[in-house]
């Protein structure tokens, strides 16, 4: 029994942390406009992060989601704009659903970062179900796919399709599609609406409803892992401020209205962290436990981080509301996390169902 990270994983964590502080600090994050920061992406690729979960047979490092967890957590701490999450989901989807030819062709390029994936699963933003997939599948694709993540900087798009009851995934050359970038609250999590007019996918393969659920769970876990880092950053920023901001002759952190709220943040972060680590571990090592584990983690994190985002701004007073101050950036991320891959309501009720109710 060992519910902690290995020395290698801890080294990886330090590496990501260093990258985020040196190469991708918040000043750089703020300068992004929804495209792909090419040089940073290349650095991430060179450091092997995009290859982590790609099997060795396909040019990857053959590691697990629990290794990737460390990268996501530290990326989240610095609100990394790199689409590592989408790329990892694409790798997972291809590895799980595609045939050998497709894997052989695409996975090595995913690992090197030469191919950059944007990803669109659900057309209906409030329906985590096979029925929420709208785009019609076929030899060619015609129609629009809304809510495609990280599309603007992508070379390729991985899109969920539906033909009656049959689900599929199509890989589309981004150049073949018309992209309309859509402004969202969190600029580090960009969306586009993708229009397709008789576009022939460069690859297409079937996906079962279970596969879709599995990918959604991986996405939910990934969003939660990023939220751990982000929420801890809010807590650190706000605790520091509470120690130095003086009102009524005392640091505001002396007042329990402030300090207890910060303690509650700690309790919640500790808790969804434990749930998320377990879920990330389950992806590869106990997939039968994943649905329940993912739902518990994502549900807890979605609500808790949303409050942390809000209170991180509120506990600063007016300065927290300013564009210049960083607290607002995390609040924006928390809004994305709330709904991405299913909200708290969906996941809590799903946990009840999976728990036999």
């Amino acid at each position, binding site marked *: *029994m*060992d*519910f*902690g*990270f*290995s020395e290698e994983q801890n080294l990886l964590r330090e590496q990501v942390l260093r990258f985020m502080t040196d190469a991708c600090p918040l000043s750089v994050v703020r300068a992004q406009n929804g495209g792909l920061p090419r040089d940073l992406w290349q650095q991430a690729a060179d450091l092997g992060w995009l290859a982590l979960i790609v099997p060795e047979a396909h040019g990857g490092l053959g590691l697990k989601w*629990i290794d990737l967890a460390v990268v996501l957590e530290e990326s989240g701490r610095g609100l990394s704009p790199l689409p590592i999450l989408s790329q990892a989901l694409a790798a997972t989807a291809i590895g799980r659903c595609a045939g050998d030819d497709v894997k052989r062709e695409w996975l090595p390029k995913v690992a090197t970062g030469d191919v950059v994936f944007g990803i669109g699963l659900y057309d209906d933003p409030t329906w985590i179900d096979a029925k929420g997939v709208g785009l019609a599948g076929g030899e060619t694709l015609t129609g629009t796919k809304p809510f495609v993540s990280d599309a603007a900087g992508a070379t390729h798009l991985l899109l969920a399709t539906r033909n009656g009851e049959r689900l599929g995934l199509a890989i589309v050359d981004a150049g073949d599609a018309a992209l309309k970038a859509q402004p969202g609250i969190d600029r580090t999590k960009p969306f586009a609406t993708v229009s397709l007019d008789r576009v022939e996918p460069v690859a297409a393969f079937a996906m079962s409803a279970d596969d879709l659920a599995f990918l959604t769970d991986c996405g939910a876990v990934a969003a939660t892992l990023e939220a751990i880092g982000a929420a801890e950053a809010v*807590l650190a920023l706000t*605790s520091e401020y*509470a*120690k130095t901001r003086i009102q009524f002759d*005392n*640091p505001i*952190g*002396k*007042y*329990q209205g*402030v*300090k*207890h709220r*910060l*303690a*509650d943040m*700690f*309790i919640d972060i*500790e*808790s*969804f962290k*434990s*749930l998320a*680590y*377990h879920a990330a*571990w389950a992806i590869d*090592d*106990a997939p039968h436990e994943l649905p329940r*584990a993912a*739902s*518990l*983690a994502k*549900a*807890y994190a979605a609500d808790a981080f949303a409050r942390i985002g809000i209170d991180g701004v509120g506990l600063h007073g007016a300065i927290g509301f300013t564009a210049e101050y960083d607290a607002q950036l995390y609040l924006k991320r928390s809004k994305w996390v709330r709904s991405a891959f299913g909200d708290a*309501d969906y*996941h*809590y*009720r*799903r*946990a*009840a*169902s999976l*728990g*036999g*109710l």
Partner: protein
Amino acid sequence: MDFDFTPEEQAFRAEVREFLAENLPPRAERGRGFMGEWLRKVRDKRWVGFSWPEEYGGGAGSLTEQAILKEEMALAGAPPLGTSFMGLAWVGPGIIQYGTDEQKQRFIPDILDSKVNWCTGYSEPNHGSDLAAIQTKAERVGDHYVVNGQKIWTTGAPWADWIILLTRTEFDVERKHDGITCLLVPMDSPGIEVRPIENMAGDRNFAEVFFTDVQVPVSNRLGEEGKGWAVTISALANERSSIGEVTQMFAKLESLKDLVRSTNRQGRPASDDPAVRRRIGEFEAKIAAMKYNGLRYLTKQLRGEPLSSETSVNKLHRASLEIEMDDFAVELTGLAGVQLPGSDEAVDGGRWARSSLGWPSVVIGGGTPNIQRNIIAERILGLPKD
């Protein structure tokens, strides 16, 4: 990261299960002699004081096997491994850590054999959360201390044989944490008077305890004179949330789901109500968080990394669950939910109504939620003390 247990640990789990299958009959079949026999058998196994040193009769077991033991015992709904909860939970560990050799020989075997019951004399009428400010006076006279003062909320005092007593030996101190001395006192000492207090559930488990010129031999002092605060701190740290509690809470959640399944609200199954389903999901997430928090902290301990006050996290979860789960059950079942055992209309024999009056032992005893939050904010986040 892995959740697997070593072959030895698995074998140990199998041993515990086998033991339980053989020695734990269903509740209805447990006769009068059962408890005595049970206590003797688990004692023979050296499962009482599982992690305590062998030389004093403990099991010298590992932390992981201790977790396995607690988990299996809770899964089986087994009775406690001894009659003195406090003796096993913190008095024993405190004596092992701070006691003299003579004290260990004298007290530990009796705790392990369930021969004596202990109670804890910390809180006073004017000093609860602010425990370090206690005023019960112990004056050194020759080879005795003479104790005068009052304790309150002393759980188990009406039937305890011994009390672990926090006194003040010095009043003129800079820090109130100094000058505190911990004494081990027989409850039948002349000058001790116990007055039970009835709680809101109608039980009389805790009491006021008055001390008038009570003589306590110096050899009954635990730790150094004036250094009793350290003893107390380590004792309270031993009161941390365990894997066994999590198992019990999962079991309680299953009972709650059974209740949901068998309940109609507004003429429709409660299990169809999305709000009800969400609450069940929320409870499960909190309990699962406690479980994995606990395993993460256990891993830290196994790796020899220091634990700060993280265990307060689970204590706070437990406190809120303890209140909310019963309250939810009572609300779910309408006016039937408020019927006590004995009522023809009671739900599950009045179990939920009754336990909805029991939360203060978990929530207030051992440090209130506000105090736990102070601990986290001050010790972990480094915020100023209030």
